[in-house]
């Protein structure tokens, strides 16, 4: 196990998206310490005005994602020892999202795109109908299940170069959600999903660079979901002309 010096040099972004700079802090190193611990220590001991967002601290809520040494990560589950470079850490707000203050980003564009991608359930029945059993081995269910562990942390969105270069692009998380809904046999309007992901910001803008899949903290594969959407929209184009 590599030894860690007593104090670490930590640079944290201060300001909003337009104005700001990295500010340096000395933070005591611990044997077991996450990036979120480091940020919390700075806020509690050095500068109470430091703004950041977190909730569950166990990798379930998806609120604490930040750029750590230029890479998007869930900070509550990222150990310092894994990412410390020459005793330095650089912590910034998530890429591709407007910065509200310091490390807190405005997640609205991210969630607006979930809605734009038609990632909502279109019911086939009323709430009074009996629950329809779905076999876990059903092919559509297997595809849908592969994406449902998304915690909406926006790490994939921050990692995506297509999002960075094309503000209209829906992004990996929203498209993966659309793919999940499309494969749900209880969903009544699959064409609405296909229409939503076939516009100018849709799945066809993806260059399959795979940053979303590489960086997803839950090990999901949004690139595969987007490839699935490209396949079914192409088939729909030949069948229905759209």
């Amino acid at each position, binding site marked *: 196990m590599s030894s860690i010096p007593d104090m670490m040099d930590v640079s944290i972004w201060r300001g909003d998206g337009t104005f700001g700079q990295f500010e340096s802090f000395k933070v005591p190193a611990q044997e077991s310490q996450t990036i979120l611990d480091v940020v919390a220590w700075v806020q509690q001991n050095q500068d109470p005005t430091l703004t950041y967002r977190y909730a569950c601290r166990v990798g379930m809520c998806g609120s604490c994602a930040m750029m750590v040494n230029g890479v998007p990560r869930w900070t509550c589950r990222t150990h310092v020892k894994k990412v410390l470079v020459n005793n330095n850490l650089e912590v910034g707000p998530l890429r591709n999202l407007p910065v509200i203050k310091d490390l807190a980003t405005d997640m609205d564009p991210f969630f607006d795109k979930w809605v734009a991608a038609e990632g909502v359930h279109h019911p086939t029945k009323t709430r009074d109908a009996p629950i329809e059993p779905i076999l876990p081995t059903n092919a559509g269910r297997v595809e849908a299940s592969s994406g449902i562990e998304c915690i909406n942390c926006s790490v994939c969105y921050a990692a995506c170069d*297509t999002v960075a*270069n*094309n503000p209209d692009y829906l992004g990996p998380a929203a498209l993966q959600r659309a793919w999940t809904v499309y494969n749900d046999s209880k969903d009544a309007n699959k064409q609405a999903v296909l229409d939503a992901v*076939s516009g100018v910001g*849709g799945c*066809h803008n993806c260059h399959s660079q795979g940053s979303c899949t590489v960086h997803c903290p839950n090990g999901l594969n949004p690139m595969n979901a987007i490839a699935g959407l490209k396949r079914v929209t*192409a088939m729909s184009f030949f069948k229905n002309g759209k």
Partner: protein
Amino acid sequence: MLDIRLYMLQRISALIMAPLTLGHIAVMIYAIQGGLTTAEILGRTQGSVLWFSFYGTFVIAASVHAAIGLRVILSEMVTLPRFALSVFTWGSCLILLFMGARAVSAVTML
């Protein structure tokens, strides 16, 4: 800046180009190996409906494919209004089509 229509156009044009590219490479290798002169090549291609169709299709597919590809690159490098992007796409397509048509007519027309 790709919707399903442009995406499918680019994929279908790529599908058309793939075998034509292989055919073009094969013809070039054959022509070089056999030591054909320019006059001998033109003697076979000029007036040939087959070669006109082969390279004519190639030029149309390449013009469509390249114009959409350039559109994607430009849209991700520079912020442009959608109308300007469409003008650029059509412009690229027509320039490539004109240049390609000139080459095809020179080689296959009598």
